[in-house]
């Protein structure tokens, strides 16, 4: 069956600062389909969608919607044409209630110009219940979990009666159940004739829900087709231009003496009675669903949170850690999650970000020795394959993967014995992901103790020797890599099973 094309983008070109990032990209969307837009970070997906959403203007090329050429001069025009854009970053106003957010900018008013709260609440409730969310429309958004905030974003586009919905990584903060509900909803939207453009790095999800795909690489169109005629390997190959293995990573070094021992660590309402050990040259994973407390646990061990009881021993000696500085002195480093908020200083340049935690190494008579700093950076640039032309540019001009490598370099320079990686590959494309895994393996081979926190079970299965599964602030399962599967992890992570001490 040949389907009707609702949207065509032809020969779109766009340059930023005299650098062309889209080299004449074509894109076609059928009516009533879910279309995956794929590509590595920096391939031009977001730019293309921002052009469609009216955020950017193309230098060349045209957009044809329902057979008519349209100039998307600003986001308003795009919205009027029935295109809504759900951004990766949440665009909700946390100090307003749910219904106020839903109707922000298009509030319903009665004939006297007074807000029609009742009607807005009714419509909000209706749409939210379609999404399977049952909360009062008058709840303040600041009191909601991140996944609910994401749901509000999605609900808002449904409210507008959109013809085309662009979803940029909508599932990053959703739990599995919510993802399933979202997919169900996407399918019912599809059957009612709405077209969805779906951007994601999670290929499994794409396979589950998308009908067709378009792949971009380095601002070029490299392929499209039907999802059912292809497999993930082929798509990955298109995305990166070569085949990428999804095999597990191993390191040669055997685990040595324990370096970090945690005994009965408890923090009220965050985590309870946590015991574990990590040895030299070992990669230990912690996984679980949102709200399992693993980030809070390791933020406490790193001294970012101070209110906890229990014992932390490093190399057999108990340490009192109440500030990240103390953690660093004890030999613990943390590569935090949410790089933009927690790890990079966007106004400092790449070199300065690298040296920030170990300024003492670069000082001479109390002054910073810039040459030494630079030389050290170039060592790490080679070692970690950091791609940057001029390391004096601010770090936010680098891609996510390269930013993460700079953060890793920062902790290597500190020479920490224990390095905690929290969601180390968040927002990083497939190629760079594997590189980062390989660096983690190398670190383990050098005798570092590595802890990896991740919400993605496949990730911990690929790189960790031992896996701890957490549920509501407790470790519910411990396994060696060989003894556990993704399904089993899910059972422990959802609290369906619980047997805390099955590995010595």
């Amino acid at each position, binding site marked *: 069956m040949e389907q009707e094309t609702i949207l065509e983008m032809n020969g779109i070109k766009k340059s930023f600062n005299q650098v062309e990032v889209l080299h004449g990209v074509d894109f076609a969307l059928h009516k009533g389909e879910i279309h995956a837009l794929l590509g590595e970070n920096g391939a031009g997906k977001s730019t293309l969608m921002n052009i469609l959403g009216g955020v950017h203007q193309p230098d060349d090329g045209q957009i044809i919607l329902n057979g008519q050429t349209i100039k998307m001069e600003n986001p308003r025009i795009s919205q009027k044409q029935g295109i809504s854009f759900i951004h990766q970053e949440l665009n909700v106003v946390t100090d307003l209630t749910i219904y106020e957010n839903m109707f922000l900018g298009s509030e319903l008013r009665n004939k006297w110009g007074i807000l029609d709260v009742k009607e807005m609440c009714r419509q909000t409730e209706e749409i939210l219940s379609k999404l399977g969310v049952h909360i009062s429309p008058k709840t303040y958004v600041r009191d909601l979990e991140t996944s609910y905030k994401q749901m509000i974003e999605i609900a808002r586009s449904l409210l507008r009666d959109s013809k085309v919905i662009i979803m940029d990584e909508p599932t990053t903060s959703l739990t599995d159940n919510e993802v399933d509900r979202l997919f169900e909803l996407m399918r019912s939207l599809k059957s009612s004739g709405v077209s969805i453009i779906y951007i994601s790095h999670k290929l499994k999800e794409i396979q589950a829900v998308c009908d067709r795909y378009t792949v971009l690489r380095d601002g070029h169109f490299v392929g499209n087709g039907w999802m059912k005629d292809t497999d993930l390997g082929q798509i990955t190959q298109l995305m990166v231009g070569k085949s990428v293995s999804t095999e597990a990573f191993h390191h040669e070094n055997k685990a040595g003496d324990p370096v970090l021992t945690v005994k009965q660590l408890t923090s009220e309402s965050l985590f309870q009675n946590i015991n574990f050990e990590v040895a030299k040259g070992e990669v230990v994973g912690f996984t679980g669903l949102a709200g399992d407390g693993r980030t809070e646990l390791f933020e406490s061990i790193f001294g*970012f949170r101070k209110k906890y009881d229990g014992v932390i021993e490093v190399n057999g000696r108990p340490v009192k850690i109440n*500030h990240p500085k103390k*953690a660093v002195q004890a030999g613990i480093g943390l590569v935090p999650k949410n790089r933009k908020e927690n790890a990079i200083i966007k106004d400092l340049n790449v070199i300065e970000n690298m040296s920030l935690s170990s*300024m003492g190494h670069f000082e001479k008579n109390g002054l910073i020795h810039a040459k030494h700093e630079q030389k050290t950076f170039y060592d790490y640039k080679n070692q970690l394959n950091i791609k940057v032309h001029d390391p004096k540019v601010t770090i936010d001009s680098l891609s996510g993967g390269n930013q993460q490598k700079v953060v890793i370099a920062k902790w290597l320079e500190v020479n920490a014995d224990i390095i905690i990686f929290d969601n180390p590959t968040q927002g990083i494309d497939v190629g760079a992901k594997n590189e980062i895994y390989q660096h983690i393996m190398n670190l383990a081979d050098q005798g570092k103790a590595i802890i990896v926190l991740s919400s993605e079970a496949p990730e911990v299965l690929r790189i960790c020797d031992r896996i701890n599964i957490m549920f509501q602030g407790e470790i519910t399962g411990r396994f060696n890599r060989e003894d556990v599967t993704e399904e089993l992890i899910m059972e422990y992570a959802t609290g369906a099973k619980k047997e805390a001490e099955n590995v010595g």
Partner: protein
Amino acid sequence: MANIKTNDNQTTTNRGLNFSWLWSEYSVVIAFIIIFIVAAFMNDRFLYLQNQLNILMQVSTIGIIALGMTVVMLSGGIDLSVGSVLAMAGVFSVLALNASESIFVGVLTALAVGAMAGLLNGILVSKGRIASFIATLGMMAGARSIALYVSDGGSKSAEVDGFMNISNSSLGMVDTPIIVFLGLTILIYILMQKTRFGRYVYALGSNEKAALLSAIRVDRIKIGVYTLCGFLVGIAALIETSRLNSISSSSSGNLYELDAIAAVIIGGTRMTGGKGKVIGTLFGVLLLGVLNNMMNLLNISPHLQGLVKGLIIIVAVLFQKRD
């Protein structure tokens, strides 16, 4: 043919890039040069060396305070108490001087009172977790009140010979306050660009949480920032007191905080911290000084000078490249 075309494009884009880079980095310098040239054309006395030194002399107090303000604002805070602390430090300095008859004790008292007020600001902001605007607003009211109470609302005059020499001596043609101001500018520049402390201040102004997670002692850096600012205010208080050999508890330092903030902002420092330069502040201070001088030379009514100054501040910031 096609090749030639690309080359053409590239040269023009490069030129465009360079200018926009120059403008974004040094807009305050360009603005300063423009106003300087305008002033030179408007009045031929403007370029006299004596007039130029006069301008520097007039801006030295505000300039020293603005240096401290730059550091505070780079850290993401603000210090509204500088004017009041200047009055308080001046009053205590004169009291100590007269009581001890030692210039050394007088100098030490001014610096210590300034630094202590700054230290208190820093502790309130970092340990007390009070917004810097509020904490220093409290200090502003409190310090002025203490100055007024101690001197019964009037002025305090120094009664020790030689105290006036601090501000009224000179090295060749250049008055001591100018040397102190320019010397401190160089020191603060080095502090902010070449030392760990400076790097940490930029980091914490840009992203406090990431700075903390990078194992920076954020609290101590904040305390250091406000203490440094208070210390510099102490130096400014000395210069101010010594110049006239007296200090007024009610009018000395009035609205200095606003002039200092204006100079820092004109100098291109971002209000929320993390971005800005000491050199920018230097030119911001000079720009305000030249402007005042020009208006005096042109006999513009003092009642109108505020309006002109306000306009220039707004225009300068309007043209700055912001993100």
